[in-house]
């Protein structure tokens, strides 16, 4: 049964990839997305059975090298992430049926369809991988297919830069993973994922490499810079998949390693928690300042990945401290939040895609009043914003509540230093939550409410049906996942002390209805509809509205030290003594801190280094023979045992 479901899903995704490449027609593309929809239904069955029964199937497919099998396997952790893929894909597929048709040419439409399916397939295979080699193979396919999606509109210079940035970062990630896996392999002598019963000191190196490798891909601060570049470039459906699922695949990879370690050390947990908290805080602070809707969502992904890693860090700390039930609680919180983020972030990206499609711009300042022009999209956007701001009774609230519970119970930790550390982490975690709420009030308010700020936004029209049904799927799941969070967790076999949000939801609903009824009954006269009073000015103009920058200004003032400005002063003189002024340029702009201090220096160093290396290749036969000669000498010295 399990085997049939899994192979069925793989086969449907594979045919969904191949078909649009063979035939370019609208019907084939529709069929292709239908196939990915079918595959996600199969996968929900597959993951559901494993989560419910706790079976751990292993499928040896072929032995492709001596001692190395192409193995696929799944356990409860993998099943959780397969479920995550399977719930995001339907919305994206339905949405894409209409969305890809807006691409420039037939070839690109079909290519985008094929790549989307390939991308989903590769992510599925990464999660199903039974050993490190299979994992890395599909990890690379995943990176390449997502890169091609980011570079989809390759004619624009900005997108080229974004693609290149993403390409470099994803390769750095893979390089670290390679080293991490190789050092693990040296330790265990086997490429399989298995329980690692080794002292933590031996595992420190693999841990660091894998943490950085997966951290780059997941978008942890300070390796997050590719996200705000790649997302605006990618088509919205691809952004939804990348932000919703691919970042979680990186989380999955890291968890696969971390959970197999039987005895982690305290500093691991502290490191993960610190990285997580900082990512969450910086992500949301940078997002507040952002004026591009997709970049804003990208930064928000950094924040949410931070929250997930906060949960993972808590797990590691509690595990070291021997608090198994708390460790389980925080791990559940991290996984549940990953699951939730996949839902609401894909929802938000899809809605953002619709808004961008309808208005033709990504600038938040140009939106406004969309609630009247695009009522359904606005409603869906609202659900996404409420969920991501973690308001009850949505799933975002349920996920973060689990983490808060874990934090609150951390008084059980005996080490006073760790207690202080956890309190600091908790406070910044709480701050993140508050800022995220402010962020999405801003995003939703500026985008959908009030009156249109630009002509583009005034002329916006509601998008076609598939682009409404698509995001409706994750929106429904957001509310469902929130209301039935307790039931879902216990269905997955996790008996955790957790409030029943269904009850809370019903209660909230009753209160709202009652309030509405009371106000309605107190109503004296018929409602009078008129314009807002504008201090005597006859018509209200968009200039009187809150702007995006204006809304976040108070918060920007508070975090002024984070957004540092840089003053560039360039002057030219006629003479050497610099007394006769020729011309000059003074520029004040935001300091791109991570880019200028963390990314550029190594890039420059590599550039200089490669200049020297390229001198070696001078096209002279003599030099090449000399290199061979030197290599032989070194070999002789080495075989003689001198080095």
């Amino acid at each position, binding site marked *: 049964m399990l085997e049939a479901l899994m192979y069925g899903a793989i086969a449907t995704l594979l045919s969904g990839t191949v078909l649009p490449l063979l035939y370019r027609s609208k019907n084939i593309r529709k069929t292709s997305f239908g196939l990915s929809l079918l595959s996600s239904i199969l996968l929900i069955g597959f993951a559901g059975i494993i989560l419910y029964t706790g079976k751990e199937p292993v499928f040896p497919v072929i032995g492709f090298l001596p001692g190395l099998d192409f193995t696929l396997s799944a356990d409860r952790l993998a099943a959780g992430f397969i479920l995550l893929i399977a719930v995001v894909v339907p919305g994206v597929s339905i949405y894409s049926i209409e969305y890809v048709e807006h691409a420039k040419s037939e070839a690109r439409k079909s290519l985008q369809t094929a790549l989307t399916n390939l991308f989903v397939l590769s992510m599925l295979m990464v999660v199903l991988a039974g050993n490190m080699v299979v994992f890395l193979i599909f990890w690379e396919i995943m990176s390449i297919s997502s890169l091609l999606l980011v570079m989809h509109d390759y004619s624009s210079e900005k997108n080229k830069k974004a693609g290149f940035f993403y390409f470099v970062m994803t390769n750095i990630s893979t390089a670290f993973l390679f080293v991490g896996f190789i050092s693990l392999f040296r330790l265990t002598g086997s490429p399989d994922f298995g329980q690692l019963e080794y002292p933590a000191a031996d595992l420190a190196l693999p841990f660091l490499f894998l943490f950085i490798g997966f951290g780059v891909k997941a978008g942890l601060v300070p390796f997050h810079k590719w996200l705000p570049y790649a997302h605006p470039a990618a088509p919205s459906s691809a952004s939804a998949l990348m932000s919703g699922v691919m970042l979680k695949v990186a989380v999955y990879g890291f968890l696969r390693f971390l959970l197999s370690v039987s005895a982690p050390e305290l500093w691991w947990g502290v490191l993960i928690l610190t990285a997580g908290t900082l990512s969450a805080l910086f992500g949301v602070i940078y997002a507040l300042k952002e004026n591009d809707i997709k970049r804003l969502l990208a930064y928000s992904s950094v924040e949410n990945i931070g929250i997930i890693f906060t949960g993972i860090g808590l797990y590691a700390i509690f595990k070291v401290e021997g608090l198994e039930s708390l460790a389980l609680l925080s791990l559940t919180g991290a996984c549940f939040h990953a699951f939730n983020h996949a839902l609401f972030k894909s929802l938000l990206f899809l809605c953002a895609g619709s808004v961008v499609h309808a208005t033709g711009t990504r600038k938040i300042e140009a939106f406004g009043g969309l609630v009247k022009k695009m009522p359904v999209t606005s409603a869906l956007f609202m659900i996404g914003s409420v969920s991501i701001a973690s308001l009850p009774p949505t799933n975002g609230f349920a996920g973060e509540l689990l983490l808060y519970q874990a934090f609150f119970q951390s008084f059980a930790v005996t080490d006073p230093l760790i207690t202080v550390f956890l309190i600091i982490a908790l406070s910044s975690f709480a701050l993140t939550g508050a800022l995220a709420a402010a962020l999405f009030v801003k995003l939703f308010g500026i985008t959908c409410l009030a009156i249109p700020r630009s002509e583009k936004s005034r002329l916006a029209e509601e998008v076609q049906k598939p682009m409404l049904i698509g995001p409706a799927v994750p929106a429904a799941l957001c509310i469902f996942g929130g209301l039935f969070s307790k039931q879902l967790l216990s269905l997955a076999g996790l008996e955790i002390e957790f409030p029943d949000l269904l009850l809370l939801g019903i209660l909230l609903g009753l209160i709202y209805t009652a309030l509405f009824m009371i106000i309605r009954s107190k109503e004296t006269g018929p409602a009078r509809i008129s314009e807002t009073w504008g201090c005597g000015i006859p018509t209200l103009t968009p200039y009187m509205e809150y702007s995006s920058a204006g809304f976040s200004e108070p918060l920007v003032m508070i975090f002024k030290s984070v957004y540092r400005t840089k003053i560039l002063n360039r002057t030219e003189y006629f003479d050497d003594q610099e007394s006769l002024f020729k011309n000059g340029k003074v520029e004040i702009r935001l300091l791109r801190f991570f880019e200028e201090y963390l990314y550029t220096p190594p890039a420059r160093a590599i550039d200089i280094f490669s200049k020297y290396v390229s001198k070696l290749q001078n096209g*002279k*036969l*003599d*030099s090449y*023979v*000399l290199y*061979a*000669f030197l290599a*032989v*000498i070194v070999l*002789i*010295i080495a*075989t*003689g*045992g*001198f080095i």
Partner: protein
Amino acid sequence: MIDPLFLEGIIKILFVFVLISAGLIISTRNLSSILTSYTIQSFLLAAVSFLLYLIDGKSQLLLLAGLTLGSKVILIPYFISRIEEKIRIGRDIHFTYLEPTTSLMLSIGLIILSYSSLSKIFEGLPLSKLFFFGAVIGLSLTLMGMLVVFSRKRVITKALGYLSMENGVLMFGLFVTELPFIIEVLIVIDLIILVILTTILAVGMDSSIEEYREKVRKLQIWTGGEFR
């Protein structure tokens, strides 16, 4: 029957001459002297092979001696001398990276390196002193040949350096690994083809390799198209 110890003594003396010939190839500027050195070196190798046959009595060694004599002492030098006549240049005075004196000093270093490195590698192997020395000389000869290839400018000298490298391989094979005879034959065939090719290309070989490339570029042999 001659006393094997006496023969071994002779072989050791020949070793010294082999090294001297290699040194000459590295440092001499006169092209015909280089060729003569190579011929002598090959002849010494043939002699060593023959003496080993006298000690061991393996007919393979006798065949090898004959092969070396026929190809490397007679045939190849004959071809090369023909080339030298054709290109009408007598001296190769250009060096890259290393001047002759430095090259000679470096060669001494190479011999010491081979000695100390091989003595570590062969530690504990039942190998007699003579065979060990043979291996050391073979390895150093190979390295010195390589040194010639990158430090001399003229193509003809480079070819001789390469041939001398091959002599080193043969030497090493004689004393340590015992290459199968068929492989030795194939190598010699390769060498002869190399020299024949060199002869055919002799028109262009009267210069250094950079100038030769320039010539080829002008004749549009390799680049294809792009007539100027």
